[in-house]
């Protein structure tokens, strides 16, 4: 069986795995964005316990491997009576992990805005929250797009780690096909091509989105 015969036989199976990878990544990213915004707001808060918690959170999440975090959620939590499905465990671990990175991206983005903007907004009589919403965020979000897209791509690649908790996603399909066909080279190269296609699509559309935002002033 040459590579093209291999592809025509297994492409469908890989595509199904890729679909699960997309689901995992999107769910993880959405959780990561929501929690990341919360953590970054805590980080910028005037209330010190919030600030303290946010720093602790990003420190722990970014300072430990995703694989360890995943195992704690999937294998560790049942020990305290919380048995989650592989899918739930996967998106929780991916979400909590990316929240740490997203929070840092947002914090850096907001702090990159000239402090004069906040002062000008407050001078008009805006309250802190109004100034954030009307003046700071709208300027920051354009700068956030490129690093958030990087995070999206990284998360998609990192999602391959959840193959270790028997999630049948793209990487896991690669392993299964490899062991049933005894063709590991073809199997993993096919998996790699699927990953490459997906990350390229993300980069392509984010480039378009970025230019569109620029055009709008």
């Amino acid at each position, binding site marked *: 069986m040459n590579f093209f015969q291999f592809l025509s036989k297994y492409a469908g199976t890989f595509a199904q795995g890729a679909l699960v990878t997309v689901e995992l990544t999107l769910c993880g990213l959405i959780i990561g964005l929501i929690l990341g915004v919360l953590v970054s707001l805590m980080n910028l808060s005037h209330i010190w316990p919030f600030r303290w918690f946010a720093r602790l959170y990003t420190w722990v999440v970014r300072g430990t491997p995703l694989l360890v975090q995943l195992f704690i959620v999937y294998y560790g939590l049942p020990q305290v009576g919380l048995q989650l499905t592989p899918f739930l465990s996967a998106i929780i671990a991916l979400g909590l992990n990316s929240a740490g990175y997203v929070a840092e991206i947002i914090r850096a983005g907001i702090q990159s805005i000239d402090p004069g903007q906040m*002062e000008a907004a407050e001078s*008009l*009589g805006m*309250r802190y929250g109004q100034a954030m919403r*009307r003046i700071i965020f709208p*300027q920051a979000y354009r700068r956030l797009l490129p690093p958030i897209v990087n995070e999206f791509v990284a998360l998609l690649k990192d999602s391959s780690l959840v193959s270790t908790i028997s999630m049948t996603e793209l990487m896991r399909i690669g392993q299964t096909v490899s062991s049933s066909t005894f063709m590991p080279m073809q199997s993993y190269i096919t998996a790699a091509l699927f990953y490459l296609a997906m990350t390229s699509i993300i980069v392509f559309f984010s480039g378009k989105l970025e230019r569109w935002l620029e055009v709008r002033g």
Partner: protein
Amino acid sequence: MPMDESVVLRGRAVSKSFGQLVVLDGIDIAVEKGEVVAIIGPSGSGKSTLLRCFNGLETPTSGTIEVAGQPLSRNRRELAKQREHLGMVFQRFHLFPHLTALQNVMEGPLTVKKMDRRQAMDRAYMLLEKVGLRDKANAYPSKLSGGQQQRVAIARALAMEPAVMLLDEPTSALDPELVGEVLQVIQGLASEGMTMLLVTHEMAFARHVADRVIFMADGKIVEEGPPEALFDRPQSPRTQQFLQNVARPAHM
């Protein structure tokens, strides 16, 4: 002390230190309704810090600030309310770059005063007209010259209908040929009776527009008086020295 209705802005024994550095050292100042007060002095003498204390961007280490007879609140919500009475114009404009000139001027009335959109827009057009930039209403700040940006910034501050305007070296960041158009707008406000506290290096302009000039050095008020007196017959050697050193810009 009886409350003086005509005093819009008052600082009593205002001092401010950053760590060991004493920036303001017992400043007493009162600005009356309709008065134009110019502050001059060498760079680093605390002029910006004083203005920032007046609208709560800095908190004095000691002393009190009163706006329209009310001490400046430490409560953020109340402070925000009081700031509506103070129009601030910065040296570096600080226009909102993601908004057009018109939107910059509308922003305060819309967000803070909750003004109706139509009304806010009409007022913004009127104010842009007043600063001579009606035709630039839909331009983003990055497409405007420094002088135009500063005029939009003045319109933005005016949109809140402040009781007093605080202007911190409004022309210092401008190319020389753009200074005149901004001074002209400020001159216009003065002749309409707007109360203003203006920090400036434009001595000729200060003499022309101000009712009273204050000379500050090392965080203290060294000398103050009507412009003719201060510029032509300065009493303190420190003032004399400063006036000799400043290169006199051409009259506007």
